[in-house]
């Protein structure tokens, strides 16, 4: 355990970060599963939430020996993350009182889900993000503008990730994604346009000062910027977009508008992230690989969450968080994707992510 916790060292340096990723990718998922489950269900130092649920599981979680056996826990009840104290999910092995941030996900309709991130969880995420930056060609020591949701949304933590782990100088503006969703739900599309304009004005105000190399934002906002402010886009060295809805047509539009700049992509939410595995020149697919082993993803049948679909087939995204301080098995995301496999990656990835649609898919419905 001592070695694993090295990433919490605040003085960690770049070679250590690279070594951490290599080490994680070499992890045996079954061994890692046992380690996390044992820590979570330790009678003395486990998670109060999970220990409270243990008696009702119908099996002894300490008997779990393999990753595949995590389906025994069933789909994770997301309502618990809306009502329970996020602290209860964290094993008592983490000293109380807990010091750190509670992050939200969802909340565009109804109450958001909330989870507590320990410092090493933030660092895990940050190390993976930095790994993505490097892989995608974002140079260290550059100036960024972060134009994403901030506040309770973990994506906003990217300011820290860029500044502390990639030696960046970061400007930031805030985007209230819940407000946008609310406007859409209420049919106030003119107000959506006004809000987009409001955001673009703030972005261009920063960019007009000069010296900003990279922009971190959402695909929707960058598309609006590409359309309305093409000169500002062409002046960037690159953009990094995070969101569920981006396709290869948008990606190629972005690259063309960047005029030699680079475009990085990631998919995820507060529970876990996945980095883009690359988009070929002729490819019609955008694949992602999760931050293994703390985050794993599967694509499962829309009608049977426990059944993983064949490679290339589309289904619902099932995410499992296997962090030492946060165990969330079988989160059924409101996204669908194609199952993606990569011989060089120790777990499944997802491709072509978009919101889940549960409608007729039988060929007989064609006519």
């Amino acid at each position, binding site marked *: 355990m001592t070695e694993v916790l090295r990433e919490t060292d605040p003085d960690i340096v770049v070679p250590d970060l690279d070594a951490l990723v290599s080490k994680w990718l070499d992890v045996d998922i079954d061994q890692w599963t046992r380690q996390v489950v044992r820590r979570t269900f330790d009678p003395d130092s486990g998670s109060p939430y999970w220990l409270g649920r243990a008696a009702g599981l119908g099996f002894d979680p300490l008997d779990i020996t393999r990753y595949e056996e995590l389906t025994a826990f069933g789909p994770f009840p997301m309502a618990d993350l809306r009502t329970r104290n996020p602290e209860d999910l964290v094993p008592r092995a983490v000293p109380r009182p807990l010091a750190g941030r509670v992050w939200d996900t969802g909340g565009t309709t109804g109450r958001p889900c909330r989870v507590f991130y320990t410092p090493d969880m933030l660092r895990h995420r940050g190390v993976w993000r930095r790994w993505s930056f490097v892989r995608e060609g974002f140079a260290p020591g550059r100036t960024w503008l972060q134009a994403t949701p901030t506040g309770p949304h973990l994506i906003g933590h990217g300011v820290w990730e860029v500044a502390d782990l990639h030696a960046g100088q970061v400007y930031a503006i805030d985007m209230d994604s819940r407000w*946008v*969703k609310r406007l*859409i*739900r209420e*049919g106030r*599309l*003119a107000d*959506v*346009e006004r809000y987009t304009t409001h955001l673009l004005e703030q972005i261009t105000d920063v960019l007009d000062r000069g010296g900003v190399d990279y922009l971190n934002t959402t*695909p*929707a*906002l*960058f*598309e*609006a910027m*590409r*359309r309305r402010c093409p000169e500002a886009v062409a002046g960037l060295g690159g953009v990094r977009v995070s*969101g*569920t*809805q981006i*396709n290869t*047509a*948008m990606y190629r539009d972005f690259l063309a508008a960047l005029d030699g700049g680079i475009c990085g992509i990631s998919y995820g939410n507060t529970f876990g992230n996945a980095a883009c595995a690359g988009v070929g020149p002729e490819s019609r697919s955008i694949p992602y690989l999760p931050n293994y082993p703390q985050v794993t993803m599967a694509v499962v049948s829309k009608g049977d969450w426990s059944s993983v679909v064949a490679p*290339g*087939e*589309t289904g619902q995204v099932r995410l499992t968080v296997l962090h030492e301080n946060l165990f969330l098995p079988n989160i059924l995301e409101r996204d*669908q994707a194609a199952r993606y496999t990569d011989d060089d990656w120790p777990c499944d990835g997802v491709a072509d992510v*978009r*919101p889940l*649609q549960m*409608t*007729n*898919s*039988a*060929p*007989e*419905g*064609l*006519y």
Partner: protein
Amino acid sequence: MSLGYLFGGGVGNEPHGIELYETSPLMRRLYEQISGWTGLTPEQILRDELPEGQERRQSVGSIREAALAMAVHDLLADAGLRPAVIGGLSLGAMTASALAGALDRQELFAMLTRAGSVPDPGPDDVAQGMALAFVPAGGADAARPWEGVAGVHPAGDFGPTVDGSQRIHMLAGHQAALEELAAAVPPGSIVPLPGRTIAVHSPLRAPYRDFMAPYIASMPFTAPSVPLLSCLERGAMKTEDDVRSMFLRNATEPISLVHLYEGMRDCGVRLGLVMGPSIPEGLLDFPFPVVHVARPEHIELAVSTVYELGLDFSGTQGR
């Protein structure tokens, strides 16, 4: 950078859109209006058992499908969305024509009602049917085991499947010939469609075409006010004669979804919305993302997707 609306074809036996109807006063008002035009009650339009008699059943089923597609269109309009280009398959092409301003809605439903008067086949007529054919994807050389088979006609092309492995065609013809062909090819490659007893989009549908031709000839078509794509050939229908020709030929000529989606792609469509439950989700290889709008929650999903893909709301409104 635009939004395309796709309307599927076919007439199913199962009612759809009930949740939309029950949650939407706008849809209920539309069904009352259609009730006034057709003489059917809103419940008959929505979910009652379809009537007996092949053509009467087909007529009421067509009204049901067109009403739902039109309702979805109106709900999306109420949410602020308008298509930049529009097109449909078969019945969907006719519904799309009405929504593109090529004919009055009432005229469309009057025509569908009139179709219920087409004489049913006699007891000695050969039973008809439909089938789907799944063939390996490929170019012009791809296998088409129905070619040259007596009593079997190509009726539609749905294009490649999403994994690129197969291409889906629709066949129409004599039921016995279709079943014989299905038995002669690898299992699952030709699948007769249960309950489909009308060989639409084939020469066998000539009696329907001939019966309806005078009626269609007298219908007051106008040039579409929204770009309207044909499912019978590649391209847009630009004049009232183009639309009338499609209405006349639809019953006996093969349809192509590929014509529609490639035409939309060429028009710069970046998101397709499928009206109602037609065209199954996740099966076909559309050249742009597609959202299926069949349930109340899909309306918000459609609008959200327009936003997420960065389509210009101002360009989708106010047409």
